[in-house]
């Protein structure tokens, strides 16, 4: 089937936009999570929505699955290709189509990087708010698929709060626009964060925000992580809503120091990065409060200008990749806990780490309880990978036990599909499948992601027997 489909791709694409050479294809075998690898059956590099639609229509004709990929920076294997499928790479679709400042909007193609949007409007006093750490490389199409967040989503929200409309190619090959302003169901809300299972984004209308009048970035160094955690709770309790509250522990600081020489205070057990923004008067008042709250910090550093601010952030934003400096291999975990449970969960991670002899560096969006434990191991040491995997999984159990979630912003992808049943009942998962089936009845759009096992119509249409439990219990109707 795939071979026949490949033979017909020339009807839709230029020959050089179709990659079949096995050596070249293998470079697409994984995204930012290298643990899972699969060489795509074929990779295509379309330049517009019509070409994407053409490819997807061919996939439908032959019943071949397809996976969309932007910059390949995802951390849950969401863009893991299918060996029996087509990989649709959007990295050539990177035009900024329109900038409409009076209405604070920009229309961009999916391959445009997150930061490129901000760079295009910065001089006019605007920016695009969500800022994942990979913002200079991750694509906006990928952001939509993963509902990406970033350090500043504590105050400003995730991708879903900053996208007004998406032009998508549905899994059966139609080009449609989902608009926030449309009456009826919020289909755009359903689509954002669907990890490529409901279609492929071909154009995104983003909301632009005004650059705040004042920004103050503070780096507070604490002797230990408990003091840092207390400060976080106290800041929120005082009614301050910073743009970001980030925390890093000693191990993460050491990695960042090795990578980018961020010059964080020496001997810190934890650092907090707190960014206040808004009207000058408000920022000043909040800063005064913050200084009082952080009285236990042994050093409080305030960025005086954009260069100093960038220097503070550089350490934090490079943290994931920087861990490569202190460990041959590592797993980036992503979990969420209620802010109040932070100390307990961190203590739990610490004992897990000691129990298994696996180091864990902690980097997190402390303000909204989004943890990014970095589980470090030496992949040449026999059994270390397995132990790291156990620790990594147990951390998610901890998050669930404390009423949290298995992912804050990296998505479920292929990596966490197996954890979904720990968080959701079969009935929950079946309900999600019903939504998926409404968009993708044949299960061709990024199959194998999010859901642990093929269930319901999603993977094998028509095999479902009996009534859905939600329908049975009278909570839902099937149309």
């Amino acid at each position: 089937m795939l071979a026949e489909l490949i033979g017909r791709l020339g009807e839709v694409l230029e020959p050089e936009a179709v990659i079949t050479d096995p050596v070249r294809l293998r470079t697409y075998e994984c995204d930012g999570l290298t643990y899972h690898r699969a060489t795509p059956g074929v990779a295509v590099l379309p330049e517009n929505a019509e070409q994407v639609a053409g490819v997807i229509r061919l996939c439908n004709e032959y019943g071949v699955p397809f996976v969309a990929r932007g910059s390949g920076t995802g951390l849950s294997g969401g863009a893991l290709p299918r060996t029996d499928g087509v990989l649709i790479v959007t990295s050539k679709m990177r035009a900024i189509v329109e900038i409409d400042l009076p209405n604070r909007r920009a229309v961009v193609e999916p391959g445009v990087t997150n930061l490129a949007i901000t760079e295009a409007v910065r001089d006019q006093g605007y920016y695009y708010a969500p800022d994942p750490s990979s913002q200079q490389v991750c694509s906006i199409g990928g952001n939509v698929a993963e509902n990406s967040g970033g350090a500043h989503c504590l105050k400003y929200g995730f991708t879903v709060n900053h996208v007004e409309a998406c032009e998508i190619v549905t899994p059966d090959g139609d080009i449609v626009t989902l608009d926030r302003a449309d009456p009826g169901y919020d289909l755009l809300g359903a689509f954002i964060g669907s990890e490529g299972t409901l279609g492929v984004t071909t154009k995104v209308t983003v909301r632009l925000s005004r650059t705040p009048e004042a920004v103050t970035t503070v780096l507070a160094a604490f002797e230990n992580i408990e003091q840092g955690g207390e400060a976080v709770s106290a800041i929120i309790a005082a009614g301050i809503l910073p743009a970001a509250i980030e925390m890093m522990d000693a191990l993460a600081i050491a990695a960042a120091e090795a990578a980018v020489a961020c010059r964080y205070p020496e001997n810190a057990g934890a650092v907090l990065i707190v960014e206040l923004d808004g009207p000058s008067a408000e920022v000043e008042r909040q800063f005064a409060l913050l200084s009082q709250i952080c009285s236990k910090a042994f050093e409080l550093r305030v960025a005086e200008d954009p260069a100093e601010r960038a220097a503070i952030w550089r350490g934090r934003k490079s943290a994931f990749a920087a861990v490569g400096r202190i460990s041959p291999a590592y797993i980036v975990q992503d979990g969420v806990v209620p802010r109040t449970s932070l100390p307990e969960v961190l203590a739990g991670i610490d004992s897990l780490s000691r129990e298994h002899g696996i180091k864990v560096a902690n980097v997190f969006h402390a303000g909204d309880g989004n943890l990014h434990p970095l589980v470090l191991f030496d992949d040449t040491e026999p059994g270390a990978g397995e132990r790291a995997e156990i620790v990594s999984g147990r951390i998610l159990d901890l998050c669930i036990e404390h009423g949290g979630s298995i992912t804050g912003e990296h998505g479920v992808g292929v990596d966490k599909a197996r954890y979904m049943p720990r968080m959701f009942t079969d009935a929950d998962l079946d309900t999600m499948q019903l939504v998926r089936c409404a968009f993708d009845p044949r299960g061709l759009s990024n199959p194998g992601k999010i859901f642990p096992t093929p269930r319901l119509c999603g993977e094998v249409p028509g095999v479902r027997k009996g009534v859905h439990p939600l329908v049975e219990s009278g909570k839902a109707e099937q149309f």
Partner: protein
Amino acid sequence: MDPELIKDCVHCGFCLPSCPTYVLWGEEMDSPRGRIHLMSQHVEGTPITPEMAGHFDACLGCMACVTACPSGVQYDRLIEQTRAEVEREHVREPRERAVRGLVFGLFPYPRRLRALRPTLGLARRLQPLLERAHPSLGAMIALAPVPGRRQRLPGRVRAVGERRAVVGMLTGCVQNEFFPQVNAATARVLAMEGCEVVIPPHQGCCGALSVHSGRDDQARRFAKRTIRTFERAGVDTVVVNAAGCGSSMKEYAELLADSPEWAGRARALRTVDLAEWLAELGPVAERHPLPVTVAYHDACHLAHAQGIRAQPRELLRGVPGLSLRDIPESDLCCGSAGTYNIFEPSAARDLGDRKAERVRSTGAQLLVSANPGCTMQIAAAMRRAGGEIRVAHTAEILDASLRGVSPSFLDAAGGKPRS
């Protein structure tokens, strides 16, 4: 290729937007991350296919990815090892082999370059023919500037005023033959800042072009000869005014690592870029005003390979009346990259055009850079777009300011035939 160096890459993709070929084409195989993946495929046993070689050849070696990488991947060493491997294992097409033979038999040899000077006029007229014979030949002619008048440099230039240091000076190949005025200016500036300048005659090539093209044996030969030349001259510091040469000379010890004796001799010789040296030395000579708007271009082998970004700007800002403008997207290579614009003329052209547009957007009267390759590349791109920009080396600006003269580069547009 060293598997340990490959393992440093965690596949985060932070290098992608810094890579000129990824910026142009948006394809994984032509990004640093993709190329490292290809290297690891080769290490695992995949032979170097023509496709694979093509992606390695397409790398400019600009090292912007080294700057961008948070994991500290030594892509510079990886690509050099890879290029050497490609030269060993991959059999190029006869036509390509011939052109490569011509370039590497010509550029690193100042005397051969000199012999070619009188034929440049004729070659320019024959450019369309040469272009048809091979695009690389066409590119070579289109890039060649009208060489400045030859200036014979003395073997030793005495310091003006109190002597603060004794330094050697590398004259280079392309710099020496096509931009002799830059070398003359460099020697004068050094002298006026209190340096006694030792300029050994018959220096030859430092080996940069060879090492950046995987011609390891040739590179080592040139490196040893350069070390010997400066040892004989009795200096322990060599000032270099061409970014590509400076970055290669700073890596002599790694290049010659197989021989502890030579590696030791390489380490004993300190290489400094002109701007780095002058900033370290601190200014003593009086600066005269030079009312001109300057766009400063970061040569990759200065900014990315040597980390020298602040010093040239600091020196230029020290000139009264000079207004300095930054070029947007300054981290992105102009496409010159040693011999890249000869072997990969199409990609180089696209990058050159992109850079020319950014340079033009600054509205500057004068483009200043510290690498002869960049100067030729950007001037050629500006000419293609129907504009002209005057070009100069940092040394020429300082020279004019220190001497208090109206510099010749302000009269004549860059690369335009002078009468």
